[in-house]
């Protein structure tokens, strides 16, 4: 059954009475400043609103209901305790401008979070203010820029980015005023070091890498990369979206990175919320400390305190009206305290175990690995090039067929360099049984496509809608209801 729009449920004059104050407050404003058009907000009863949004929620897949082997996204279990405790009234009611003397409880959490993030990355300072990975990148690359400019080095106008990189990397570099030079990937999945040597030079402001890469492969020659970039006078930026694979195994700081952002909504399990909020906390080594975005938390004589622009004059500045996504940060903090030291070490252990297990089983089931000679890190790439050709089993067809079997699809068509690819990341919080059922479903789809190639093109058939006309959506954009 389809669910009407909330506007269609409404009737003029209907009111959720308990939510609406009585009429009658005087408005002494000049009439020309007032609105006369009535905004198109729904007029529904409280029951209708509750029922509508409850029913809509049921039209979603989610971690709480399905397995999400979604590469690059680290869809792990979001502990409900993190939600409950981050939503304690004292935290929810705290005003962002509440002075430090009445904020020590909250500041203590943020300070400790900064310290823990330093420990797991090998950086010396962290700022929690970026509100998503892309904003973390922006602040990181802006710091690289500020660093060079501060030294009077004005010629560094390029940022190197591998072709496998996430789209936010090149987009960010440009948003920071740099030109992007793309680095090819070698046949073995590592960076093409020769190309790197060719491209690195006096115009190189820095390189943006994630290690393991978005191919799920650990960049084995990372020390060489470091030497080349540092040798050329550039800095290394670490996209921490894939930190899950190496938590407690190797520190980005030890690999030579100068700056890092971490997607707390990935490795530190804050929920994705149907597309955010996240947090892209950013960490730096000593060289970049002066440029860290404000505010962050320091310690003073009277306890924890905010470090603001005034105390940190070379900072690249503010990224948000207040201090970033505090509620997300609290969730990450709680999660880290529940994991503890040993728990964090285990994250990579089991994330990598799960990925390699699924990889081995899928290979045995007849799927082609993009890099069969390599170990998977927390994720790996399968290519359906052969199956697409032979049975019409493209990545998208397989993705939709999985939905019908109760699994979210892996990431498809990313990284762009592998044709008909699936990027599969099981995460450490899924059990062997779930992984086995997933592999069985994959094998089942493959078998079905071999027998009846048309079938998978029809999928999904069990969802609230079947395949949507995206061309029409883009050609004649309907972005808003008009009655």
């Amino acid at each position, binding site marked *: 059954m389809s669910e009407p729009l909330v506007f269609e449920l409404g009737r003029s004059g209907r009111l959720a009475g308990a939510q*609406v104050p009585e009429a009658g407050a005087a408005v002494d404003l000049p009439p020309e400043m007032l609105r006369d058009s009535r905004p198109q907000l729904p007029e529904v009863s409280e029951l209708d609103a509750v029922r509508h*949004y409850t029913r809509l929620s049921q039209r979603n897949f989610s971690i709480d209901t399905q397995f999400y082997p979604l590469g690059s996204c680290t869809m792990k279990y979001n502990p409900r305790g993190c939600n409950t405790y981050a939503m304690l009234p004292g935290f929810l009611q705290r005003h962002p401008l509440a002075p430090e003397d009445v904020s020590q409880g909250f500041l203590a959490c943020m300070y400790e979070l900064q310290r823990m993030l330093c420990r797991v990355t090998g950086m010396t300072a962290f700022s929690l203010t970026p509100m998503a990975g892309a904003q973390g990148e922006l602040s990181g690359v802006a710091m690289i820029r500020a660093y060079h400019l501060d030294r009077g080095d004005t010629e560094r106008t390029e940022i190197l980015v591998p072709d496998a990189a996430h789209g936010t990397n090149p987009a960010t570099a440009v948003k920071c005023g740099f030109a992007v030079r793309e680095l090819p990937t070698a046949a073995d999945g590592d960076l093409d070091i020769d190309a790197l040597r060719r491209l690195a030079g006096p115009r190189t402001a820095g390189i943006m890498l994630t290690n393991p890469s978005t191919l799920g492969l650990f960049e084995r020659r990372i020390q060489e990369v470091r030497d080349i970039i540092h040798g050329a006078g550039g800095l290394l930026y670490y996209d921490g979206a894939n930190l899950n694979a190496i938590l407690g195994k190797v520190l980005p700081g030890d690999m030579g990175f100068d700056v890092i952002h971490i997607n707390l909504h990935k490795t530190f399990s804050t929920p994705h919320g*149907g597309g955010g909020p996240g947090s892209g906390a950013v960490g730096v080594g000593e060289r970049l400390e002066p440029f860290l975005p404000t505010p962050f938390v320091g310690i003073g004589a009277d306890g924890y305190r905010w470090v603001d622009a005034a105390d940190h004059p070379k900072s690249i500045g503010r990224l948000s*009206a207040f201090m970033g996504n505090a509620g997300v940060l609290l969730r990450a903090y709680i999660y880290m305290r529940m994991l503890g030291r040993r728990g964090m070490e285990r994250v990579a252990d089991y994330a990598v175990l799960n990925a390699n297990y699924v990889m081995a089983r899928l290979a045995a089931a007849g799927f082609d690995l993009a890099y069969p000679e390599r170990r998977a890190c927390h994720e790996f790439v399968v290519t359906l090039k052969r199956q697409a050709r032979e049975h019409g089993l493209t990545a998208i067809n397989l993705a939709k067929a999985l939905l019908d079997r109760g699994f979210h699809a892996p990431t498809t068509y990313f990284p762009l360099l592998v044709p008909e690819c699936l990027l599969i990341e099981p995460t450490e919080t899924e059990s062997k049984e779930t992984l086995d059922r997933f592999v069985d479903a994959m094998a089942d789809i493959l078998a079905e496509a071999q027998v009846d190639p048309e079938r998978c093109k029809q999928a999904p058939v069990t969802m609230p809608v079947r395949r949507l006309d995206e061309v029409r959506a883009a050609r004649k954009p*309907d972005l808003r209801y008009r009655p």
Partner: protein
Amino acid sequence: MPFIPHTGADTDAMLKTIGVAGIDELFEEIPGDLRLESLEGIPDAMTESEVGRLMRRRAARDEMALNFLGAGAYEHHIPAAVWELTTRGEFYSAYTPYQAEASQGTLQVIYEYQTMMASLTGLDVSNASHYDGASALAEAVLMAVRCNRRSTSRRVLVPRALHPHYRAVLETITSTQGVDLVDLPYDPAGGHTDTGALDDHAGEDVTAVVIPQPNVFGVLEPVDTMTDWAADNGALAVGVVNPMALGLLKPPGEWGREGAAIACGEGQPLGVPLSSGGPYFGFLTCRQALVRQLPGRLVGRTVDVDGKPGFTLTLQAREQHIRRSRATSNICTNQGLMVTAATIYMSLVGPVGLRRVAALCHARTAALAAGTQSIGGVSVAFASPHFHEVVLRLPVSGNEVLERLRAQGILGGADLGRWYPELGDAVLVCATETRTGQDIHRYVEALGSAIGGIGDGP
């Protein structure tokens, strides 16, 4: 092992399938000299019970009895249903709705949200959210720069009465793009932007004008004049608005003769708790003609292969995952869950409720301002009409008064001297609909005695 389901037997069986002897072998591609023995400086694990206790203690420590602080973040009533629904696992733990068929819930919510925000701001289209109000303004300005083909200066006029934190974020994000931010002073008597100063820029190549409504002082700007000035001078008008105020005030799309081209602002007043400043959400709406320069996600309604209506992300060619270095913005993850909360909030209060809440906030702040006039030396700093926030000029330092109020459990307002040296004796005070007559009375009493105390002072 918290959150890891593997039994010893599971691990063994999995290792066997992979064909390795131990988990460590799986990390063999990491160069040996980089391999960590163990993490240092991370405390031992706590159970949920233990961490709950810690968090309860810390949360309780910061609780304040009574809040009269606004300045960009407002304490409104949030219907219980909003967060009981928003934190349902299916919203809370869902991914970005890239697989449309398995995400119709979130997609429809966003489509409804886009409709509400576009209408609330009086414009045609809304994106699916930005990080917060300040970063949305930065994107709005960058968007205006891209859209205004007639202008090459990248000069943007920014009122000094814009929230200083917004101004700072604008600086951080647009400075690397060569945008030139030019201050517009405020009228010292009225507290609104000095339109005379605008005229000093007449004839210049101005790319955009930022128009906050209300401005940081709670004062209403001459939005019609400013918008018309922009139109007359080939600049795009970018409104930065409090969405709660729009329950009552003329929306950006209706300002002046043509309306603002772009509107943005902080969505927090629409059902999002104060929570130390985030997560909130920025909204961004614009005229139809500008939609392909609008950054961020967009949801469209379409049909499936059977002709059944459904929703999907659309116009993705503007975005980083398709267009990469040539994308309109680098934004990827936005503030989806907050949008869910705001959509439910707006559904519950409706057009009538939003108007009444706005009117009540306004009336409460007016009552507070009136109440304080009986205290010697206290006056309303600015003469122009204001919405639900007011600057009080005090006979003593604002900072000290606020400290004394805090000792009584009252967050008494924002110390404007921090941002505007010329306003060191002024505090910015806000009473929303959640402050009762009794609360206001208590505030007035406390303010009186705090000022008296300082007067007597050492």
